[in-house]
């Protein structure tokens, strides 16, 4: 495993207890509930959830302990050595039935009209161990007749609530939104938002997921299906690289919901708004379903045969050609794509993603995170006593990673340090949140390293953070994809490598994980989607061009044909005008995608591919965990599985993703021990690719032209006072999520976010309409104020066609400058 030294062995004190007469030895301090489960006895629970704080309110888990008069709640009572516990005797069973009777005293039993019917925990437990009759004849509590719509995704029925408070705790402790509370008292408590009003929260729907009854319900799924009508398939979320396991439910061929399963995947039972509600793009009306060929300057539908034969003609050998792929495709598709580009088109001009600076910075990232050295399970990484995040607004970019870090950081022995210009939700869990001007990441890193080496007064935040580094023995760093956008990204990453080396010299264990914003960014690199690396991160003999170089060459007329797999270069490349101009110089462009993107609109051939729900394969998440994607529905209309398309163009004989995976195992060392068939909810962590470092040192040109200080010259500019950063919003990811109706309801249009100080100075209030201007482009949008963000920094989400944020960029410039003016 990468960078891992021998960890200190922890010695546990053990306790031996008897559960229903069966002896079991467990770690001292284990809850009776867990000990019983280990011994094979299931105890019913409502309020208990392993990842939440203990509450002990539902009393379902009462057990009898020999020598104690009263029954004890096993979910909050730890074992004691020699304890004799009974979980299934008559006393316990009768108590359980009585507790259910109490719950039913107020539960409406409107199961026939309740969405939860059929998968309701209360229903199941009553069926199993409940009373068949009730002694209560009083009126049931009734808050309202009609269910309350709390948000575009959450609908609430207070009458059904059984007060387990899972929703309140998950919102508070795991999600960190703290949007829910138990409002009221006694039996009249309502678990709801502020003033029981519309929720302005993360809309992640985790309250819906954890609700054991039908109190919190999903509005999009409402009355759509009964659980037993659904066909459910486990697969992987297609948005960020956290790699959440999701379960897609379809009814009559229609995708009706996405949920998570308890104890499955690293996300366990949580998802974010994108993962849970961002599925409507799959069966969107806007999907392209027929191949198209440009005839007389216009795109016209055609047959697959025609489209493929045109492509085969145009990509003949001897032509100067290139390929760009999106990181949303499976390992298998990307592997075949690079085979197509390298073996059939005979070029190393292949790159992933059109957003990032260049091949050197992406290589430096591969190096800094030791991606070649194998994966690091995130839970191992989170065991560190210091967690440091830089270059990612993780709460927006990787929401479920944010949950995992929050849960880990709730341990007071751990320190969380976040370095980012923008305020984020996770700041509430951090010991220190370092703010800096974008582009000066290198200074932050250098400041930390300087203090560790030379000491000093720990007066500044950076020094205070460095002091924490000094005191820690196990350190995990998370490096965000934002670093890849910087003009001086290589310098920053070199600085990080130096800091790692410094910390290692002082005897600390360092782990370094990337935070990627596309589901298969890590897998794509391992599959050889890089101008410098073959599959398995083996160096190519002859360097290819990266996306920026391809466009440069195209501008000069040195590229004849380009194959684009799912990437929207026109919308995403940081200099929209240049990208469009360069692409228009390429005589023949093929775009394989699911939607008519801006890039597809200027293509010569469009091939309709499949969405993630329509294919088999694997994704490798940011940890290096390979997970199975499973086909849920057939490709819509005349669209085809992307693997089939690539194979028929390249003339490859692979029949299935599994066959390609077998080939990958042979070529990519890190994948050799993974069995495609046996990939379950936990996936499998890749091993090393056979080398620790890519040793690119000496070959990487320092792009900023400066020395190694990692400082980008940021000049003051009175006319354009704001440094612009762009990225994903919590509800959106790339340009794909704007095709998902529900996500568009949650955030229909872009906004510009600035710090409170800047807003005060310019006299603009929250929600006011402003115009953002820069680089000859301007766009009107609403202003949002972020208390605690870095002054002089503006953020605009990059997810909307209505505002092309990449128009603000000049080629090669990592951080553009803009000004913000009030609408007259």
């Amino acid at each position, binding site marked *: 495993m990468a960078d891992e030294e021998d960890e200190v062995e922890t010695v546990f004190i053990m306790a031996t207890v008897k559960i229903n007469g069966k002896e079991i030895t467990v770690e001292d301090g284990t809850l009776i509930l867990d000990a019983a489960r280990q011994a094979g006895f299931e105890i019913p629970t409502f309020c208990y959830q392993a990842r939440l704080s203990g509450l002990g309110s539902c009393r379902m888990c009462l057990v009898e302990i020999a020598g104690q008069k009263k029954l004890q709640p096993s979910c909050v009572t730890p074992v004691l050595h020699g304890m004799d516990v009974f979980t299934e005797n008559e006393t316990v069973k009768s108590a359980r039935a009585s507790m259910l009777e109490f719950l039913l005293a107020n539960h409406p039993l409107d199961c026939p009209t309740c969405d939860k019917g059929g998968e309701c925990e209360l229903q199941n437990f009553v069926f199993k161990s409940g009373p068949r009759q009730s002694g209560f004849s009083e009126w049931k509590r009734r808050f309202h007749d009609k269910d309350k719509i709390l948000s575009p995704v959450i609908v609430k029925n207070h009458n059904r609530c059984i007060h387990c408070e899972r929703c309140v705790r998950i919102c508070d402790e795991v999600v960190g939104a703290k949007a829910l*509370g138990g409002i009221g008292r006694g039996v009249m408590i309502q678990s709801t938002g502020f003033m029981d009003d519309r929720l302005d929260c993360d809309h992640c729907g985790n309250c819906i997921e954890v609700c054991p009854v039908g109190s919190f319900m999903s509005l999009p799924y409402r009355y759509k299906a009964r659980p037993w009508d659904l066909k459910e398939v486990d697969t992987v979320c297609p948005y960020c690289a956290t790699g959440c396991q999701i379960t897609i439910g379809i009814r009559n061929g229609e995708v009706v919901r996405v949920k998570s399963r308890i104890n499955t995947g690293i996300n366990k039972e949580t998802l974010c708004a994108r993962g849970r509600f961002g599925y409507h793009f799959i069966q969107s009306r806007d999907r392209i379903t027929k191949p198209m060929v440009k005839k007389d300057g216009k795109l016209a539908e055609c047959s697959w045969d025609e489209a493929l034969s045109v492509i085969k003609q145009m990509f003949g050998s001897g032509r100067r050609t290139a390929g760009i792929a999106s990181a949303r495709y499976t390992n298998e598709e990307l592997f075949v794509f690079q085979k197509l580009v390298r073996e059939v088109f005979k070029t190393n001009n292949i790159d992933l993603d059109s957003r990032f600076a260049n091949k050197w910075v992406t290589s430096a990232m591969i190096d800094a995170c030791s991606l070649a050295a194998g994966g690091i399970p995130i839970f191992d990484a989170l065991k560190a006593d210091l967690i440091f995040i830089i270059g990612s607004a993780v709460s927006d970019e990787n929401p479920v990673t944010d949950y995992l870090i929050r849960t880990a950081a709730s341990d007071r022995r751990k320190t969380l340090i976040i370095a980012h210009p923008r305020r984020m939700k996770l700041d509430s869990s951090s010991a220190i949140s370092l703010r800096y001007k974008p582009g000066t990441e290198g200074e932050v890193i250098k400041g930390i390293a300087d203090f560790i080496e030379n000491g000093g007064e720990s007066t500044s935040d950076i020094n205070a953070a460095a002091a924490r580094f000094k005191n820690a023995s196990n350190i995990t760093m998370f490096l965000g994809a934002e670093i890849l956008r910087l003009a001086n990204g290589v310098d920053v990453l070199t600085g990080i490598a130096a800091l790692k080396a410094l910390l290692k010299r002082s005897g600390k264990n360092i782990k370094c994980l990337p935070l990627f914003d596309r589901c298969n960014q890590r897998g794509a690199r391992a599959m050889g989607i890089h101008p410098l690396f073959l599959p398995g991160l083996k160096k190519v003999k002859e360097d290819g061009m990266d996306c920026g170089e391809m466009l440069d060459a195209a501008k000069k007329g040195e590229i004849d044909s380009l194959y684009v797999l799912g990437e929207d270069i026109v919308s995403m490349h940081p200099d929209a005008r240049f990208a469009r101009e360069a692409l228009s110089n390429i005589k023949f462009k093929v775009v394989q995608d699911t939607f008519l993107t801006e890039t597809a609109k200027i293509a010569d051939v469009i091939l309709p591919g499949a969405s993630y729900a329509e294919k088999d394969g694997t994704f490798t998440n940011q940890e290096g965990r390979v997970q199975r994607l499973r086909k849920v529905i057939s490709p819509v209309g005349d669209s085809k599985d992307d693997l089939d398309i690539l194979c028929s163009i390249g003339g490859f004989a692979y029949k299935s993703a599994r066959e390609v995976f077998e080939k990958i195992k042979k070529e990519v060392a890190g994948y050799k021990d993974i069995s495609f068939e046996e990939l379950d909810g936990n996936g499998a962590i890749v091993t090393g690719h056979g080398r620790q470092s890519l040793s690119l040192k000496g070959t990487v040109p320092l792009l900023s032209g400066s020395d190694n200080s990692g400082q980008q010259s940021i000049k003051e500019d009175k006319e354009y006072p704001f440094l612009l950063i762009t990225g994903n919003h919590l509800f959106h990811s790339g340009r794909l999520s704007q095709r998902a109706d529900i996500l568009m309801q949650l955030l229909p249009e872009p906004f510009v976010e600035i710090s409170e100080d800047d807003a005060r100075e310019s006299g603009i209030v929250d929600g006011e309409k402003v115009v953002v201007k820069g680089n000859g482009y301007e766009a009107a949008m609403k202003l949002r104020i972020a208390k605690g963000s870095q002054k002089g920094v503006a953020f605009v989400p990059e997810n909307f066609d209505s505002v092309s944020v990449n128009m603000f960029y000049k080629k090669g410039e990592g951080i553009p400058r803009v000004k913000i003016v009030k609408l007259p």
Partner: protein
Amino acid sequence: MLSDKSKEEIKRVLNKYPNKRSAAMDALRIAQNETGCLSGDVMQEVAGILGMPAPQVNEVAAFYTMYNKKPVGKYHIQVCTNVSCSLLGAEHIVEFLSRKLGIKKGETTPDKKVTLSVVECLGSCGTAPMMQINDDYYEDLTDEKIEEILSKLP
């Protein structure tokens, strides 16, 4: 918006507590003294001052009967109906007041003079049944006593 005076007072009481959260009840009391009842806006403002999530301030306010969630009249009659008072006729007292004032529990007279509320134990079991009007206790209640008290309300 709370007045500067109330905000100052909240800042002053913060010193009494180990952290800001602990001052929630005191801060809500100060806010209510000024505004009469705790509307959403007031709770939001208190939450802002204390750096607490608004729903958690809402939880505190909703739990205690001493916090008014709706505007109350000039005189707020709170009748204890907890165990001791109930055993000694609190239900009758509520009913008697209700008849006298022409309003149900939880309601305010149309002239906004009197609000009748039913609350939990006010810690005066030794002198049950009892009620509280604004900040004063009226104890060992009988119908006659209540009539007298009501007639004396200015």
